[in-house]
């Protein structure tokens, strides 16, 4: 009964998505207020029914209803309740349902929070989101119904993939999807602006907080994914350049370019065509990622059930959405006027440089991801593009990005005197060069040119941020002054930028140090035996068997000593999940601010001996800490007071504008 209810709710949601995509759009074009007014109720209705469907699937999992194929494949009576819920998005059908659920959620959020928009614009934005929703809902209903039944009913379910039974992975997909799908808001704003023919500062201001929030979720999602891989895969890696990871990284890069470009369009009215193209690109890459992951055209360590029929469906959908939007762009972009002028050296040019670099990097990641496919399609043979290629590319482009990142905040809009900037940045340059050279010399550690470069780049960012802070606060006194400044209009954006850029500095240190100074040891230990690792003593005290809720485990005990003093007790496990009988390593990690000690159990070798893999991972936390700071920066920027003030100010203005089909010109 409940699965049928869920299925019915999905069908009703699809009908409402059709209503949402058709009527408000036509109404906005031929000025029919009644049709325009349909947008919001249709968006709410769609959300309501998808929420019901989602609830039905959750309830089927919680009640172990194995008559539902999807539940029978991914559920199990022994699964802890938390994982019964996260099993909903543990495989293809359910993750699509989560996807449309989040999409309808974003649609409702836009309809509620963007009330200051002229009704016509809002109707168009919601309508475009409805169009995207039609695609995903029909994909769900026609190729991947999560509510399909099976007979005879299995007695027990196939269980959730043990890899996914981890808190990190329970929340990683929802965060990632919040980001992917959130890009549809920026996309819809861009399409609405293109249809209306008015790309201006007001459009940029409206879509900016939405884009920033979506980007923040994407950042959190990617960071969580990396943290999970480190904890769960048992070989200490944190990023694999796997097609599925790249699928999330490409929209992130495009969105990073977009949030910077939006700043220029909002503040200076420049880069309009470019910004709108980036908004289309960011969402297109999200969709492309879905295609790559779901269609099976690329092999990946993330083994999803892939299916060519599904691939064809998404490809057609891609053609409609991306092809349609790029055609609209080609038709409308020539008539867009160029905005504010700027000189050859100004904040605009630096941000343009940032944009170009980010787009180039995105293109390279796309090329690397698709290379196996390109070679195959052209009969050039088979290749796989791995770690070294991607890493080399990042080593080439990152320094340029960072140099611009340091200069940007200190550079004026419109015109900047290079000599003046050089004078300001002299101190930063000296400190970063000095620090970099010190770090490259073999004083504390063995020396490393790469570590030197990383320290130099990070110091460059930090010093230039401090200089920028000093400049901003030069008329304010002490901590009270800082506090005052924090509350000012526009400060959210500024401090968001500071925190996010600082996050990049932290991230660079983490990545480089862990790659340069990582110590790795494969060893066989008998109970009571000790070994040395990077100045620590690790004593192995044997392995005991343990019974978990849905797995059996061998739990090792490893004491970590610094000199004579014990500083940590690690209990790495080797688990065998009862149903899927897949061995899983649960690493034992002693977390530290400047280093992790990571122990993963290998094999029992008889007589209580075990093979073990030990790692010393300096500064690895900084990678995720940096990611977190970047996300916090996004949150600060999105919560800038000026967006809320804009909401209050603009209500009467938009009411006065009525339904003339134009975007209100907010100016700036």
């Amino acid at each position, binding site marked *: 009964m409940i699965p049928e209810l869920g299925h019915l709710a999905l069908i009703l949601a699809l009908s409402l998505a059709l209503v949402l995509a058709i009527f408000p759009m036509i109404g906005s074009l031929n000025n029919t207020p009644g049709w325009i007014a349909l947008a919001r109720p249709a968006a709410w209705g769609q959300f309501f029914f998808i929420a019901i469907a989602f609830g039905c699937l959750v309830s089927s999992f919680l009640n172990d209803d194995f008559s539902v194929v999807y539940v029978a494949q991914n559920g199990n009576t022994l699964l802890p309740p938390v994982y019964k819920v996260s099993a909903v998005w543990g495989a293809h059908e359910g993750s699509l349902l989560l996807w449309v659920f989040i999409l309808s959620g974003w649609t409702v959020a836009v309809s509620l929070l963007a009330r200051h928009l002229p009704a016509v614009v809002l109707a168009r934005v919601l309508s475009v989101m409805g169009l995207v929703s039609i695609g995903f809902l029909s994909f769900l209903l026609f190729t991947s119904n999560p509510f399909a039944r099976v007979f005879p009913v299995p007695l027990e379910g196939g269980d959730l993939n043990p890899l996914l039974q981890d808190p990190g992975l329970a929340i990683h997909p929802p965060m990632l999807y919040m980001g992917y799908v959130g890009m549809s808001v920026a996309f819809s704003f861009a399409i609405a602006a293109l249809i209306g023919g008015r790309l201006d500062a007001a459009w940029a201001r409206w879509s900016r907080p939405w884009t920033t929030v979506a980007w923040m979720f994407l950042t959190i999602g990617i960071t969580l994914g990396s943290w999970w891989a480190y904890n769960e895969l*048992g*070989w200490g890696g944190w990023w694999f350049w796997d097609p599925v990871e790249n699928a999330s990284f490409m929209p992130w890069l495009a969105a990073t370019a977009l949030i910077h470009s939006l700043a220029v369009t909002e503040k200076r009215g420049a880069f309009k*065509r470019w910004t709108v*193209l980036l908004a*289309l*690109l960011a969402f*297109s890459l999200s969709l*492309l990622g879905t*295609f790559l992951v779901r*269609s*099976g*055209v*690329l*092999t990946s360590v993330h083994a999803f059930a892939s299916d*060519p029929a599904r*691939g*064809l469906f998404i*490809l057609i959908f*891609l*053609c409609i959405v*991306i*092809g349609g939007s*790029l*055609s609209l*762009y*080609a038709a409308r*972009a*020539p008539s867009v006027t160029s905005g504010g002028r700027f000189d050859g050296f100004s904040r605009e040019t630096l941000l343009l440089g940032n944009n170009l670099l980010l787009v180039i990097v995105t293109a390279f990641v796309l090329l690397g991801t*698709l290379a*196996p*496919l*390109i070679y*195959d*399609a052209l009969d050039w*043979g*088979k*290749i*796989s593009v791995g770690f070294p290629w991607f890493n080399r590319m990042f080593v080439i482009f990152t320094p340029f990005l960072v140099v611009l990142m340091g200069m940007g905040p200190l550079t004026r809009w419109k015109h900047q005197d290079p000599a003046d900037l050089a004078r300001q940045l002299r101190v930063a340059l000296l400190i970063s060069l000095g620090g970099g050279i010190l770090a490259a010399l073999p004083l504390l550690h063995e020396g490393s040119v790469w570590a030197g470069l990383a320290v130099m780049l990070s110091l460059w960012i930090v010093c230039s941020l401090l200089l920028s802070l000093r400049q901003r606060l030069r008329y304010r006194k002490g901590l009270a002054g800082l506090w005052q400044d924090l509350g000012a209009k526009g400060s959210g954006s500024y401090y968001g930028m500071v925190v996010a850029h600082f996050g990049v500095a932290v991230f660079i240190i983490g990545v480089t140090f862990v790659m340069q100074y990582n110590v790795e040891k494969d060893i066989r230990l008998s109970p009571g035996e000790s070994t040395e690792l990077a100045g620590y003593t690790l004593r192995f005290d044997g392995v005991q068997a343990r019974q978990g809720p849905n797995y059996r485990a061998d739990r090792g005990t490893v004491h970590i000593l610094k000199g004579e003093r014990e500083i940590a007790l690690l209990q790495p496990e080797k688990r*065998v999940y009862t149903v899927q*009988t*897949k*061995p899983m*390593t649960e690493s034992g990690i002693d977390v530290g601010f400047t280093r992790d000690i990571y122990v993963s159990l*290998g*094999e029992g*070798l*008889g007589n209580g001996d075990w*093979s073990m893999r030990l790692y010393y991972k300096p500064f690895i936390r900084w990678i995720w800490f940096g990611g977190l700071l970047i996300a916090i920066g996004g949150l600060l920027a999105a919560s800038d007071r000026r967006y809320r003030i804009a909401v209050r100010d603009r209500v009467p203005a938009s009411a006065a504008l009525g339904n003339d089909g134009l975007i209100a010109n907010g100016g700036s």
Partner: protein
Amino acid sequence: MTRYLRYLVPLAIFALLVALLFRGLSLDPKIVPSPLVGKPIPTFTLTRLDNPAVTISDADFKGKVSLLNVWATWCVSCRREHETLVQLAKTGQVEIYGLNYKDNREDANRWLAQLGNPYVANAFDSDGRVGIDWGVYGAPETFIIDREGIIRHKHIGPLTIEILNEEILPLVAKLKS
């Protein structure tokens, strides 16, 4: 005119991409000739499946023509293939080494005890790390290695008598001569 053409560039790039992706749908990424064919076997050292105290390494492959068969107890096709391997071993035409891939030692030894052991020796690659070096996509896979320790051929998927007769044994005979 060029003013307008410029804005068609993104659409044109997208069209190329769609053509590529459409082609991709009809290709099978799992059919992979190994990039290692013609290259020396990757260096490795692993414990033997039947005895963790003894190791087996790339050095063991020098000086003779041999097969390396990647298998696991969780792999259904390997079970199908196993009988073929046992028969091949009986003919004594070529030495078969095994790479027990992402498996469990107990299960694997039980499997050999039950179904027969066609292998000269088995390397135990529990976490599949050595498998990565060999470019293993999934079990079963079979490599043909010549006297110099160079990989001459890779077969993906279960071996059958036909494949042995048409593909594997002629190459083995050629390498031996």
